[in-house]
């Protein structure tokens, strides 16, 4: 009998506890994620994995990825050398599945024919919390039958999955309608050259350069990048200095970043130079520093560095601020101040063709 739990702010603890119990008993759980609804089973439990494969009609030898509790535990499950570690730390946590040589600590049924394993560390508080309590990896595969589309809501899932399959599910965690993010980008790191096996929302050329094919994708990349740096500020304000020509998507980048803070009304601040948004901190909890203010500068109309005297940059560079500065190249001397007082990330967006943009990220400016 399938049990369903609704995911609400107040029911979070119960959901995590119940899921943990079901996983420990070898059960199959439908669970929300940063991408689509996924199927969780204990990745170290052979019988549970078999049940999952039966559900998915998965041919043998076709790999299934796993969620790892913590980036620092990764080497327990897969072989990671220095080069790979560096790349992994730029991608995870995030919407990526990274393929590495397995250490066979999880069920062999999850591996590919070459003995590789796909690992995910999502930027998704609920899974992070669950696995940190459970302390074992869980499978990370979409809750659909092989070859069918993934699901973004429980309604659609129940509608399209036949009853006999549904009977295999032990627990459904209903997180409502998920944001329509694509499944993760799959990156094979087992060869010297990085290979992208499946394109998700965040596509990369190399670990510091991302590729966007649309304004929406620029937003998704920004959302990922900002989420990543949010917890790495050493208590300082976080400043993104954004450069790129007119029409390259700088404001789209900021829009995407703002979604991390539930801010949905970003517009171009060109005319007023900057807009300030309050962050409702009640909603943020996942290993992130607390931010209170989201400040969006656009220096397009700045002609004279003297104008900074009237632009409140000192005010902006306070603890608890996350700041985005479009046309960052106009910062002049103020740039040194930012470098000193804040954690600065440099984003350069380039036109490649009409649709395509390259988004370059650097922690040290040039």
């Amino acid at each position, binding site marked *: 009998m399938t049990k369903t739990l609704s995911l609400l702010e107040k029911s979070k603890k119960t959901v995590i506890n119940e899921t943990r119990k079901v996983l420990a008993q070898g059960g199959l759980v439908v669970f929300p994620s940063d991408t689509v609804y996924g199927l969780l089973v204990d990745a170290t439990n052979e019988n549970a994995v078999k049940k999952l494969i039966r559900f998915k009609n998965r041919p043998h030898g076709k790999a299934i990825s796993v969620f790892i509790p913590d980036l620092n535990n990764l080497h327990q499950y897969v072989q990671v050398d220095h080069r790979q570690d560096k790349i992994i730390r730029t991608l995870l946590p995030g919407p990526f599945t990274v393929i590495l040589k397995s250490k066979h600590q999880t069920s062999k049924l999850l591996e590919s024919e070459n003995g590789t394993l796909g690992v995910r560390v999502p930027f998704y508080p609920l899974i992070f919390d669950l696995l940190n309590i459970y302390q074992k990896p869980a499978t990370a595969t979409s809750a659909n039958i092989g070859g069918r589309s993934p699901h973004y809501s429980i309604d659609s899932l129940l509608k399209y999955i036949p009853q006999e399959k549904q009977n295999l599910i032990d627990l459904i965690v209903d997180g409502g309608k998920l944001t329509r993010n694509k499944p993760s980008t799959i990156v094979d790191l087992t060869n010297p050259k990085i290979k992208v096996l499946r394109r998700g929302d965040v596509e990369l050329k190399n670990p510091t350069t991302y590729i966007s094919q649309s304004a929406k994708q620029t937003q998704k990349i920004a959302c990922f990048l900002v989420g990543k740096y949010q917890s790495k500020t050493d208590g300082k304000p976080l400043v993104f200095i954004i450069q790129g*020509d*007119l*029409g390259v998507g700088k*404001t*789209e980048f900021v829009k995407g970043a703002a979604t991390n803070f539930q801010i949905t*009304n970003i*517009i*171009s601040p*060109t*005319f*007023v*130079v*900057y*807009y*300030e*948004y309050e962050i409702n901190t009640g909603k943020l909890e996942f290993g992130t520093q607390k931010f209170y203010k989201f400040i969006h500068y656009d220096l*397009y*109309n700045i*002609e*004279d560095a*003297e*104008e900074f*005297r*009237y*632009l*409140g940059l000192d*005010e902006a560079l306070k603890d608890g601020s996350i700041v985005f500065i479009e046309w960052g190249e106009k910062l002049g001397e103020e740039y040194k101040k930012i470098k000193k007082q804040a954690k600065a990330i440099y984003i350069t967006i380039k036109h490649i063709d*009409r649709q395509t943009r390259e988004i370059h990220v650097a922690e040290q400016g040039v």
Partner: protein
Amino acid sequence: MIILAIDTSCDETSAAVTKGQMVIANVVYSQVLVHQKWGGVVPSLAKRGHEERIDWVIDSTLKKAKITKKDLDYVAVTYGPGLAIALEVGINKAKEIASEFDKKLIAVNHMEGHLYSSFVQNSRGNPKRDWQFPYLGLLVSGGHTELVLFSSHVEYQILGETRDDAAGESLDKAARMLGFGYPGGPVIEKLAKEAQNVDQYHFPRPMVKINNLEFSFSGLKTSFLYYLQKLSDQEKIKNLRFLASSYQEAVFDTLVYKTNQAIKKTGVKRMLMGGGVAVNARLRQKVRALVRTSGGSIYFPPFSYLNFDNAAMIGVAAYYRAKIGLIVQSADEFDRVPRLSLLQSTKN
């Protein structure tokens, strides 16, 4: 009801003394500068230095109105939308005066000021325009583009607004791409007029097909950029007027299309326009044509200065807020709201 109004929402430091709908005095700092000090050019250093000039602006306004702070009934101030650090200067000054002279404060949304700007009268009480609610307001400026249902005094509903660039900003940026300085809107208007406002290039009308009243001008900006990149400098210079004209047509057609949709959706045919872009003769022509075909009417701000940032319109909006008792309850808690929406200022 004598109100001292202050607006420091962006570049301009402005104060006004109003009595009901009448403006007794209105001072905008940069205009004074242009006329008196620098002979036409506002140095960029003077931009946004509200702190350094607010006292002077207020004192001049009161002097012009021949009153003192004691004579005031209320102090009104813009608390958003706008530049945080600039808004702060006006609010702090308003609080200071209110506290020293024991006056009540009125918090005004800059955009409601623009809505009321068509009903601002000079010191003789002209023009006399009757109120015939509801109105459909089209507010277009360098920083804003929105369609508002103005159903009665201090009652607003946003029908649509921009998701990215404002219409005025879009025109400014196009001018910059063509090699002109800021502000570019008037340059585009002039070039377009020289080309008889023809639409030679048919740039995309952003979001015209989508069935809502939201605006988006950033895509148009990008397609313009790509088009220009394909042209040689010579071609660009040769076709300058046609490029400007076609771009302006794309922006204005979008505004007119969405306005027409709003008229159809709400059934409201009496229109108001406000904001800096509303002085553009081509836009006025297009909106007037729309009003004619829909059988409605339209008011523009009666004096040109009312299109731009000014405290006079803030004073008039404040008058209608005060009339229904919408005054600031606690000065201590009263703060700027940089992304203030009209939805936060409506009485219901």
